[in-house]
């Protein structure tokens, strides 16, 4: 056990391990690229949907239950299906990661919008604000904390799941898990797992700091979904 941890420490800190096409630096960047791109695309799709549902109140049923559906969808199945349809490309990876992130962002965005006090909305309209002004100047700012929480949650889940890229021959930190097993190198498997966890936590902390900085003066939100 101790020996395993020592070897892990050596693996994580050796210069040789960090350089080269299979080095930690490369794999980290690849993993980061997959995760951030997928989260951004998901946000691009999910934010308007969540905002629209929250603003109009129509389709609330969808918003509430979408995250349940997203959670139930087996990622491995989706990856395999897209792979069989599109062959050796990044499509299986990105489709699955986006499919994972969209429900989380939609549900949290909707929850944020739904939590806006209707009296505040009324007051804004009473002041003569038009619909889009209410949306942009009142609803979104008030919903922002929960929206940010949704983005954080989605990002963390995407980072943890981006290991599947290696399942369809691409890079990222998942390479260490799959190759480590094939090469009977438990240290490599452990190293990959630890690095994914560190990356996920680091990103979460970074986004949390952003959240804290933006909402210094607001009360802390509670999580939805």
């Amino acid at each position: 056990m101790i020996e395993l941890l020592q070897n892990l420490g050596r693996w994580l800190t050796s210069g040789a391990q960090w350089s080269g096409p299979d080095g930690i630096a490369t794999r980290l960047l690849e993993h980061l690229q997959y995760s951030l791109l997928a989260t951004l695309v998901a946000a691009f799709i999910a934010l308007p949907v969540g905002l629209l549902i929250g603003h109009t109140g129509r389709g609330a049923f969808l918003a509430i239950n979408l995250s349940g559906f997203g959670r139930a969808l087996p990622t491995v199945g989706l990856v395999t299906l897209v792979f069989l349809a599109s062959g050796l490309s990044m499509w299986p990876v990105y489709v699955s990661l986006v499919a994972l992130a969209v429900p989380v962002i939609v549900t949290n965005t909707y929850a944020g919008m739904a939590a806006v006090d209707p009296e505040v909305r009324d007051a804004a309209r009473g002041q003569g604000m038009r619909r889009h002004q209410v949306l942009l100047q009142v609803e979104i700012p008030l919903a922002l904390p929960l929206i940010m929480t949704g983005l954080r949650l989605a990002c963390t889940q995407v980072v943890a799941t981006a290991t599947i890229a290696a399942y369809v021959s691409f890079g990222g930190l998942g390479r260490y898990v799959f190759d480590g097993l094939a090469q009977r190198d438990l240290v490599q498997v452990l190293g990959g797992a630890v690095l994914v966890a560190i990356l996920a936590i680091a990103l979460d902390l970074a986004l949390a700091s952003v959240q804290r900085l933006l909402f210094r003066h607001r009360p802390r939100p509670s999580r939805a979904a």
Partner: protein
Amino acid sequence: MNRRKLLGGLLAGASVPTLAACSGGVTSLKGDGSGGEGGGSSAGGLVIGTANFTENQLLGYLYAEALRGAGVKTSVRPNLGSREIVIPALRQGDIDLLPEYQGNLLLHFDDKAPQTQAGDLQNALTVALPTGLEALSYAAAEDKDVFCVTRETADKYGLRSFTDLKKQNGKLVFGGPAEDKNRVVGLVGLKNRYGVTFKEFKALDASGPLVKGALKKGDVDVANLFSTDPDIEANGWVILADPKALIPAQHIVPVIRSAKADTKVRKALAKLGVALTTHELARLNKLVDKDKKDPDEVAANWAADHGLTKK
């Protein structure tokens, strides 16, 4: 880190006795109750494990049929994972029998083994396998690792054998399972025996959809495939010749826990081994992979047709 291990250990400890009762079939670290002295007994039934490619599952079901015909109870656990997963499972007793391949199996336990001929390999295996495991009679059928290129690549670079690859050193991309990077039957052997080096190695899979897709697309130039894979013929891929005998013979060989190997089992599997030729195995692979027939059905029909079981 310690905490997590402790948690895992706690969970495992709590689960094992409870789950041994309700999981049915494969229980874990205790092994089996039957003897262990000399003879071995298949009285309690055998658990056949298979690795994560369709041919191995087919073989597993064929073993099950052969044993069933001899009156031995079996259950098949298909698609358990790669060799790195199933061999330890065999040693621990989570499974009892595994269809394997002589050459690669030997190299798994002794990566310096020089044997390449079937008979020599069988003897070497008897020595190399750990106590408690045994290699039974090998089948006529063989499924070797082959390194293939597309017809276009072969014509473009004039590639007919491994020696021809040396002329393209540093220019071609090699694709295969991750372990090829460090294997004698892989990059290491190609370098040492033929002086061949590649521009890049892509860790894909063992003659699976990833490496075949990459070969088709041109993402890799040389691919490590299995000789009985129906896609080689279907795509007109060229198998490079191996004049210096780097790749050892790979007859199908049942690996079994000695405790379960009694005369009934030995004879039944030997009978199967006589009937199963490379040609037949390739034909069965095609039925499963190309015609999408179920491996257990294909195995049952074949066994009945060849007198291993009664119809």
